[in-house]
């Protein structure tokens, strides 16, 4: 949406904070899709994958799509906060593609939503994420399984909501402890997933940081407010919910959403 505005935001955006730690790239082959995923991985300074210290995991969607450099921003914010002693160190994994437009295949829920969650699009990508990628990352890295977070902007934010709403109280520990849903749309399907969650579960034990950009217009404000009102009305005891309305546009929402969201999700330095 509004690619021109996003590109303008790119042109005017400041450089992300410098990354610390070690950055690497590798491919991840899923049994469920044909094209491999390109993982962009940041581990903290002094990181020992076999050490006793466990780190939060931040999974970043759309790492490089449309030049918005979401992975670089998130890595920079985590690095900066940790270096300043204002936030914990974290492992950051950007789930990218050789062709970043493949996100369209993965992030959007099927229309209409499939109550069995056996469809394609977000249904399939959720299975890739929770049944293949997260277990492999968990095996290979020193990740705290109770602190795994998903960050998405725009359609990535739609998937973040979707992933958060997939969990039911009978499914054990949620695969994610929290999400940042940055300036995404709110199609009717998201309300359906929210209703399904409320029908099968009395709690929603995770943290949600949701933002919208004012300049996207009043249409997004209507559905954003409707979703937040509906969720708050459920009174899920385990839910931590924070929202922010940003005085900016779609591209401009990336940085402040992740800055506020990482602070909300990761908290203070240990």
């Amino acid at each position: 949406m509004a690619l021109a505005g996003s590109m303008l935001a790119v042109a005017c955006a400041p450089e992300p904070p410098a990354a610390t730690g070690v950055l690497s790239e590798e491919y991840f082959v899923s049994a469920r899709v044909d094209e491999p995923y390109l993982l962009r991985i940041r581990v903290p300074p002094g990181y020992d994958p076999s050490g006793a210290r466990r780190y939060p995991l931040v999974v970043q969607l759309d790492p490089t799509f449309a030049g918005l450099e979401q992975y670089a921003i998130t890595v920079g914010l985590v690095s900066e906060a940790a270096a300043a002693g204002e936030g914990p160190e974290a492992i950051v994994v950007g789930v990218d593609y050789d062709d970043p437009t493949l996100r369209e295949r993965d992030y959007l829920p099927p229309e209409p939503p499939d109550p069995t969650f056996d469809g394609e699009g977000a249904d399939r990508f959720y299975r890739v994420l929770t049944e293949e990628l997260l277990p492999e990352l968990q095996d290979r890295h020193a990740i705290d399984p109770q602190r795994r977070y998903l960050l998405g902007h725009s359609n990535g934010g739609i998937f973040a909501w979707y992933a958060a709403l997939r969990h039911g109280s009978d499914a054990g520990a949620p695969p994610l402890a929290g999400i940042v849903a940055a300036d995404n749309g709110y199609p009717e399907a998201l309300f359906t997933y929210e209703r399904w969650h409320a029908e099968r579960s009395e709690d929603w034990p995770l943290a949600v940081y949701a933002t919208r950009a004012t300049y996207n217009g009043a249409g997004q404000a209507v559905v954003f407010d409707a979703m937040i009102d509906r969720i708050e009305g459920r009174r899920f005891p385990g839910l931590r919910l924070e929202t922010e309305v940003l005085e900016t546009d779609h591209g401009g929402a990336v940085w402040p959403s992740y800055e506020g969201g990482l602070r909300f999700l990761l908290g203070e330095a240990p």
Partner: protein
Amino acid sequence: MMPVIGWFAVLLVAPAPAPAPAPAPAPAPAPHVAEDGRRSGRTHLQLDASVLWGVGGQMFLGTQVRGVAVLEHWATARALGTWDLGGAFAYQNEPTFLAPWIDTTQVEGATHRTQLVAHVGHTVHMGPRRRSALGLHVLGGWNAWRSHYRVHYSLEDVRGEATSTRHAAVLGGELRFTQRLHRRVGLNVVAGGMVPTQSSYLISLAHVGLGLSFYARPRSWGRR
């Protein structure tokens, strides 16, 4: 010797001497720059009405009305230069049918942008009769942004309506080509954009337009 009566007869039938011809009325001054390429010393008024297409938060359609006083400044054998001072009013509308990601069965409304700006620029009038003009103008003024939408998700019983407004100063530029077709009417093509002092969603990014230009010379403005 001719009888007296004869003289009278001659006087009566002789044609009267022709009156001195009245001076021909001076042709009305042209409402545009002179076709002979010389400075006329007059101030002209140009009114442009154009339809616009452009990009702000999404694609928009719009209209622009611009009026400028055209002040001649220099002339060469090939062109005449003018300073143009005036203002413009523009209205831009971002409809849902130009946003394919919006389901128009669920969302109604539009984003509106209104701009009132001053124009200052320079135009070069070219061609054998100085009918082709290319001008570059700086514009600046006020921009109002208003977003109003209604949403209805029938399956999930989500219904609502909201309005957002913002005001911002704008600064930009326009390139305008005008081809005069008639003493008082021409065609114009315009391309412009805003300096990104604010989000393009608020103030727009760029536009192109096509329209008519009208030429006039207010009586009271005479010679400079």
